[in-house]
């Protein structure tokens, strides 16, 4: 006997099939996989539910990039600095062994205590961070190492120096580089996927998203301030633009949802890391044996297909 939640999910899936111009081939080919994915989601998010994901995505006890690195990578060596100006601790880059092979890791890093939070700038990277990520991606490309990105940022840092050092251009060029890589790339949104700061490292062959992560064009607070002219309407704003994982999957923005331990990733870091590692491994396995040229072509075609519009007749 299907539960009410399941019935609603199936309805959502049937809507997905009928969505116009969502990139037909992609939807047709992946409906089965989406069905399996959607089965994992236990309930239809409503306003409270969506706000709950926002809170879970920002939970202080949620595992951060280095918590995962400790658990899923061996021999991790951090690489620092953009080789031009500075090192940006808000974005961690390095090489390590994952499943016995070398991968490049790029990830935003938040922190729990105040001093460390300040040092990590709350996971908000400067252009120097994105330039560091670019040089590590280039290194990976030269050696054929897969690039794994872990996205967890409220957004790129909105400061004077960040602007002067070319924040917009750095985000654009990091994406442009990712569109050129001839090595497999997997990104996972592990907390907050905040706008340009997130997409800068997430133009990947496979984009995954943890069950309680959020991925959005603007923070709920920012959206509320602009459209409602009142920051306190953040829950309404979040409900309106729906940054939750199910919605991102529905729109084809992410390829798969990564399950979290019951109650959320913050309850059991080891289990969360195991589930994340499984998902990354599965994605890398799917990409094994595909030529660099073909990876690049498919990656561009995937992003080219994103968007929903109508043709006026």
């Amino acid at each position, binding site marked *: 006997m299907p539960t009410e939640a399941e019935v*609603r999910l199936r309805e*959502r899936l049937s*809507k997905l099939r009928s*969505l*116009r111009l969502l990139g037909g081939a992609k939807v047709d080919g992946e409906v089965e996989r989406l069905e399996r994915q959607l089965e994992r989601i236990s309930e*239809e998010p*409503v*306003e409270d539910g969506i706000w709950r994901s926002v809170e879970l995505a920002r939970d202080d006890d949620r595992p951060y990039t280095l918590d995962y690195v400790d658990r899923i990578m061996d021999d991790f060596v951090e690489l620092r600095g953009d080789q031009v100006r500075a090192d940006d601790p808000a974005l961690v880059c390095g090489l390590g062994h994952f499943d016995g092979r070398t991968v490049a890791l790029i990830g935003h890093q938040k922190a729990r205590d105040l001093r460390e939070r300040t040092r990590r700038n709350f996971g908000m990277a400067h252009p120097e961070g994105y330039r560091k990520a670019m040089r590590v991606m280039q290194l990976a490309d030269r050696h054929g190492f897969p690039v794994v990105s872990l996205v967890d940022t409220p957004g*790129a840092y*909105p*400061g*004077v120096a*960040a*602007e*002067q050092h*070319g*924040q*917009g*251009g750095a*985000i*654009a*060029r990091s*994406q*442009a580089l990712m*569109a050129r890589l001839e090595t497999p790339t997997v990104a996972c949104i592990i907390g907050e996927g905040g*706008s*340009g700061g*997130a*997409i*800068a490292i997430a*133009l990947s062959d496979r984009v995954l998203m943890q069950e309680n992560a959020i*991925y*959005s*064009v*603007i923070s709920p607070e920012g959206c509320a301030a*602009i*459209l*409602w*002219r*009142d920051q306190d*309407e953040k829950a309404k*704003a979040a*409900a*309106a*633009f*729906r*940054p939750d994982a199910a*919605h991102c999957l529905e*729109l084809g*923005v992410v390829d798969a949802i990564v399950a979290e331990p019951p109650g959320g990733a913050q309850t059991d870091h080891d289990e969360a890391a195991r589930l994340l590692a499984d998902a990354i491994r599965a994605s890398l396995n799917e990409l094994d044996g595909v030529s660099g040229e073909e990876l690049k072509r498919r990656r*561009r075609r995937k*992003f*080219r297909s*994103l*968007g*929903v*519009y*109508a*043709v*006026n007749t």
Partner: protein
Amino acid sequence: MASRIDVSIEHSHAPEQPDSAKPHPNTCPGCGSHYRDDELDAHLRVCRQCGHHFSVRARARVGQLVDEGSFVEEAADLRSDDPLGFYDLRPYTERLAAAELETGLGDAMVIGEASIERRACALAVMDFAFMGGSMGSVVGEKFCRACEGAIEREVPLVSVTASGGARMQEGILSLMQLPKTVCAVEDMRDAGVALISVMAHPTTAGVLASFASLGDVVIAEPGALLAFTGPRVVQQTTREKLPDDFGLAESNYRFGHVDAIVARPQLRSYLGRLLGLLTHADRG
């Protein structure tokens, strides 16, 4: 499908500004000079007293730049959809309808083919008057088609941007227009076709953080705000003291982010020269 979530709120929270509080659009914010429409248009909408560049609508911009009669518009039939059933103080569909009525445009970008100083090119021109020139699925799609047109005809693409960034009403799909347009630019690069990016006021957030910054040559209009984050938000979040020219074209030029600042009366001939340099003679 579950019923749409009601996100409307009491309108008393957000009083509309009275019209009298806004300066007249033809009054120069630089020096206070006031112009009739025809006077402004005759001078490419540049203030004759202080050189302030007033904003230019997309069709007017095309008219200023291209050889007369050479512009052929493409993809004019694309319209925004409402994938989220979004509404804030007003439904998105209503905002779209109002913008279309007000501007006579289907969305915030006009694309097509044209020639500038007898050099063939593709064009992608944004219109700030259409919902703040925000980039949603239609702008992203049109820009990609402009790139594809340029590749097909083997001509450079000239983009003119004026945008507040991604269109929030399309949620995450608007963010996806960043990688989408970036991929289209990379396809142009692979095909050996150049992108000339002209940044007009304002070119900010999602548009600056995607195709606009990827021009092989990047040109700014004088006084244009070119910033990932605008001065008000930077001030509010960081409490930093902002330099007087924060985010302006002149500051971007000083920091090495743009190749040139070109005043509007010189823009057409400047583009003509660049197109001459970036067009491959052996390709006809």
